């Protein structure tokens, strides 16, 4: 049926006060009691356990596997190898669309990166499968590994990120630099990082003839479903994926990776349900990561400290067999009002799994370099870093010249700085000490992240018992979609939240798109918004065209939906409940669908971004070089805040991630073999509680009429940006040592006697 898109001018108003409330997670009790069923908690009858054997070399070929030894092990049912596996319907090397990545699912004996799956052992118990995998004792023909940012010839990729141009410019950068009074030219390096979601990738797959049932954490139900359908040559309606809860994804569960496909293949091979769960170290390879970068920033200013040019070049890596390029330099497009800007990228290919989006892809890596460089430039000009940023505040988006749909960054700077006490910061580094003699430093960074929208659909129902339902295949990665989207649903249906049955996390529900790009609440919220408008319009039609209804004839004036009742807009004393309307009409329920989508006209006209300002205090031992962050304040403007509690927690998480970026995270890659030597959470450092200071988050009020009907901008990723640079800049301010290779290590700070 033709769907009304009532998003911008609904015929009827809906009132509710759920949006804006700091509700606690509605799934919290389930999780605390261990009753929330994650993928690996499923155990269908007859299920077997699959364990992957993974490559210990990063380039070459598998020349032998002792399959017989594995098969002989008690409990082993089958061993899936490149010679013994179900056929796929299409070659997984074929990229059927840009959201399809090449994967290793035993199509050959080639090894393209360390920890690549090379066989799958299926057994009655996890222990038997694990030992079976060990007994395979693979032998290899090893080729020299390609490692690091200088591995081989560089090239300019056709696009970076998801289809962004590799190069962008506005104005004449070389002329701007030549005419500059002051210049900086600095190179920053960021390491490879891994998503490390708490929940490893996992799948329970069960075939019933041609029908496939899948329990698997995914940030993109329908993208995964489409990929499974094409790989196995089955119709979409034969596949059911359940993904009610994810233990984090951060981008690594957005697209179908190889290991879950192996789980489905294994189930097909043995004709029984199969569970496959990755071990921690197996997540360092086949499921994506953040690529390393080397970024060169050249910046010039005039005598007043106004930017004359900003040149940002990023070198990154991709795998030898597929393409994803961390769009690090793009971070310089939106923040600072340089009359000339150029951003560019190049890359080399290394023996690694293909990099992927990881929380603030491009923005995080680019931000720490850009914010460090801006800090260096401010210092070169002798100007306070905040004053410098205000002097170069972008009133329009610098790279495009478009106005912003809304931008409350100035308020973020003001409120954040006031809360932090920034005004007392000495300009010179290495000036402050605490009582114990530790060096104290203050740094700041600007946060930014695009306000994106994808496509989504929702189905709304109003029932004769006065309740409602909202169905959408949305994803809760832990961020609180079960709660925030239900809040939106309640308001859009004019019902109390407890009267709304909110369904999500399953592929038999309307497509909610992908939970990524910080766009899920906005996109799914917009679909819920229009589905709610459509179903209320239908209900209003029933009432206003029925002469027995007190709302008869109110169609032109419109009605207001509130508390389960429709009320005349022109006479609020007249109204009736949803239940009465449906009972009189003799229908059990009314239902309608609605969609959410980006608005091309608005995007053409406006630049749409969330913004923020992060301030950090660090302490550094003057002789020993150990660093500790002691305070962070972040002020963010991200449009409408649906649930302040959840938003605060997202922003906290992002800020901690930024701290981690600056001081801790790094996959240590053996330079000879390309293997990752710290593929575990003991040695791959992330901050522990004692590293995380008291955090203060301010959400600055911002109304954006253009981004989407609800004015939501998204908060999932922005917290990382700005924060990493703020910590790095604070380390400089504490010590006077500018570290340009991240994470900042003790040895870099031992330079002073």
């Amino acid at each position: 049926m033709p769907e009304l898109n009532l998003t911008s001018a609904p015929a009827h108003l809906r009132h509710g006060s759920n949006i804006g409330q700091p509700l606690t997670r509605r799934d919290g009790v389930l999780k605390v009691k261990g009753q929330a069923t994650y993928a690996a908690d499923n155990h269908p009858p007859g299920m077997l356990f699959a364990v992957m054997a993974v490559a210990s070399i990063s380039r070459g070929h598998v020349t032998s596997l002792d399959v017989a030894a594995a098969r002989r092990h008690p409990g082993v049912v089958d061993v899936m190898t490149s010679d013994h596996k179900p056929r796929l319907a299409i070659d997984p090397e074929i990229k059927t669309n840009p959201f399809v990545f090449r994967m290793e699912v035993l199509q050959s004996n080639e090894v393209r990166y360390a920890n690549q799956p090379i066989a799958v052992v299926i057994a009655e118990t996890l222990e038997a499968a694990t030992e079976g995998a060990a007994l395979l004792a693979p032998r290899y023909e090893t080729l020299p590994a390609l490692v690091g940012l200088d591995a081989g010839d560089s090239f300019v990729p056709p696009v970076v990120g998801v289809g962004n141009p590799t190069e962008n410019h506005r104005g004449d950068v070389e002329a701007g630099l030549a005419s500059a009074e002051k210049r900086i030219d600095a190179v920053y390096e960021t390491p490879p990082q891994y998503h490390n979601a708490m929940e490893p990738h996992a799948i329970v797959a069960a075939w019933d003839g041609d029908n496939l049932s899948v329990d698997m954490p995914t940030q993109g139900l329908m993208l995964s479903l489409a990929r499974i359908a094409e790989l196995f040559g089955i119709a979409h309606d034969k596949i059911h994926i359940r993904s009610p809860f994810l233990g984090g994804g951060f981008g690594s569960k957005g697209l179908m990776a190889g290991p879950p496909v192996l789980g489905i293949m294994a189930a097909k091979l043995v004709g029984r349900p199969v569970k496959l769960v990755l071990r921690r170290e197996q997540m360092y390879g086949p499921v994506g990561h953040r690529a390393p970068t080397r970024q060169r920033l050249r910046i010039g200013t005039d005598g007043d400290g106004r930017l004359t040019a900003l040149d940002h070049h990023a070198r990154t890596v991709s795998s030898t067999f597929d393409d994803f390029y961390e769009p690090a330099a793009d971070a310089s497009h939106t923040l600072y009002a340089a009359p000339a800007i150029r951003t560019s990228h190049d890359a080399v290919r290394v023996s690694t799994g293909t990099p992927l989006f990881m929380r603030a892809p491009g923005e995080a890596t680019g931000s720490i370099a850009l914010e460090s460089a801006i800090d260096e430039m401010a210092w070169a000009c002798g100007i306070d870093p905040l004053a410098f940023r205000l002097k170069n505040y972008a009133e329009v988006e610098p790279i495009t010249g478009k106005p912003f749909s809304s931008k409350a960054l100035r308020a973020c700077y003001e409120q954040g700085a006031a809360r932090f006490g920034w005004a007392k910061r000495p300009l010179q580094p290495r000036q402050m000490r605490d009582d114990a003699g530790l060096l104290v430093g203050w740094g700041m960074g600007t946060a930014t992240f695009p306000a994106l929208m994808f496509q989504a659909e929702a189905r709304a129902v109003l029932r004769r018992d006065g309740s409602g339902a909202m169905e959408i295949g949305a994803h809760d990665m832990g961020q609180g979609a079960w709660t925030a989207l239900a809040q939106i649903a309640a308001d859009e249906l004019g019902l109390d939240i407890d009267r709304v049955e909110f369904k999500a996390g399953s592929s038999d529900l309307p497509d909610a798109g992908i939970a990524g790009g910080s766009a899920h609440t906005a996109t799914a919220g917009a679909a819920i918004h229009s589905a709610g408008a459509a179903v209320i319009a239908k209900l209003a039609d029933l009432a206003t065209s029925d002469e027995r209804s007190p709302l008869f004839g109110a169609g032109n004036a419109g009605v207001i939906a509130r508390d389960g009742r429709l009320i005349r807009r022109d006479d609020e004393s007249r109204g009736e409940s949803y239940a009465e309307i449906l009972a009189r009409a003799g229908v059990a329920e009314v239902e309608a669908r609605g969609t959410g989508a980006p608005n091309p006209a608005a995007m053409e006209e406006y630049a749409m971004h969330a913004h923020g300002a992060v301030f950090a205090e660090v302490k550094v031992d003057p002789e020993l070089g150990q660093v500790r962050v002691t305070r962070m304040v972040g002020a963010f403007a991200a449009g409408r805040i649906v649930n302040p509690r959840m938003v605060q927690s997202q922003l906290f998480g992002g800020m901690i991630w930024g701290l981690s970026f600056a001081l801790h995270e790094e996959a240590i890659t053996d330079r000879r073999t390309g293997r990752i030597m710290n593929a575990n959470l003991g040695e791959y450092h992330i901050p522990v509680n004692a590293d995380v200071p008291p955090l203060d988050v301010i959400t600055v009020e911002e109304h954006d009429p253009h981004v989407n009907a609800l004015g939501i901008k998204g908060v999932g990723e922005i917290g990382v940006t700005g924060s990493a640079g703020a910590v790095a800049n604070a380390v400089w301010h504490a010590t006077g040592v500018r570290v340009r290779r991240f994470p900042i290590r003790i040895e870099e700070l031992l330079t002073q006697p």
Partner: protein
Amino acid sequence: MKQFDYVRPATVAEAVAAAAQPGAVYLAAGTNLLDLMKGGVSRPDRLVDVTHLDGLDRIERLADGGVRIGVLVSNADLAHDADFAKSYPAVAEALLSGASAQLRNAATVGGNLLQRTRCAYFYDTASRCNKREAGSGCDARDGENRTHAVLGWSENCIATHPSDFCVPLVALDAIVEIEGRNGRREIALDELHRLPGDTPERETAFEPGDLVVAVRLPAAARGFAARARYLKVRDRTSYAFAVVSAAAALRIENGKIAEARLALGGVAAKPWRARAAEDVLRNVAPTVDAFQEAARRALADAKPSGDNAFKIELARRIVVRALSLAVAGTPARIPALPASPFASTSGAIHA
């Protein structure tokens, strides 16, 4: 999985007999051993579980003024024993700076002494490692070795011993009581761990079946209670092994150092007692100059084994700082961030 026997002997004698056979290893809390088994690094044929042996879980004051720590006392119980912590504050501080609360609750004294190196190539069965497989080579030597040894290493192995606990213990002349096939004997802790030389696979002075039953601190160790600290520099504030650490203990009489004890952690295959440094501190005033000279002596033989030259300079600075902290006196309470350079920060959050 690999099949192995699991035995739970009732007496120390039975344990020693059961463990004396090839392929047998002792199992204490398993916080290290089980990880090694899961990774295929250790593939024992027999586990001899010692956690049920009687009488090994006590802290006893001895008539001669020393203390005897049963080998099954947990790291947490020992650190939280008020009397022990008061008498040997640097030991308690070192214990509390190690691992996490959960691990400390489980880990035993014996397991801590005998924990294996954290060298990533040792843990990775696809790498060559002389310690794991004698004569196979050492992939750390030209590999990612930022945290490896700067003292006492050989071309065959550059690994470090990771224990915090052992560092103040060795400084305080701890003695290890061993029950073996030929009965009981004791050795200085300083002699328990071996430097790699040509045989890095031989990590200790043990004979097959040797069981540590207790660790003793002599009466003299208590004499340092007023001025004893442990300092540990790490890559994050808590839950990380030492990049470099030091235990320093002083006895001061009439404004001069009557006796100094100093040991370093994270620098060698054993907790590194710095006797030459101790010697230069005898009978001198406790000044920064004296400490710097001691630091110079302590690291005189140090050389980088890879990308870790910084550890030598860091170790010198840690020595100076640890001695300075010791002179300042043991704090009345163990800081909320034990052994941390941030220990003195007010309002510190607990590790």
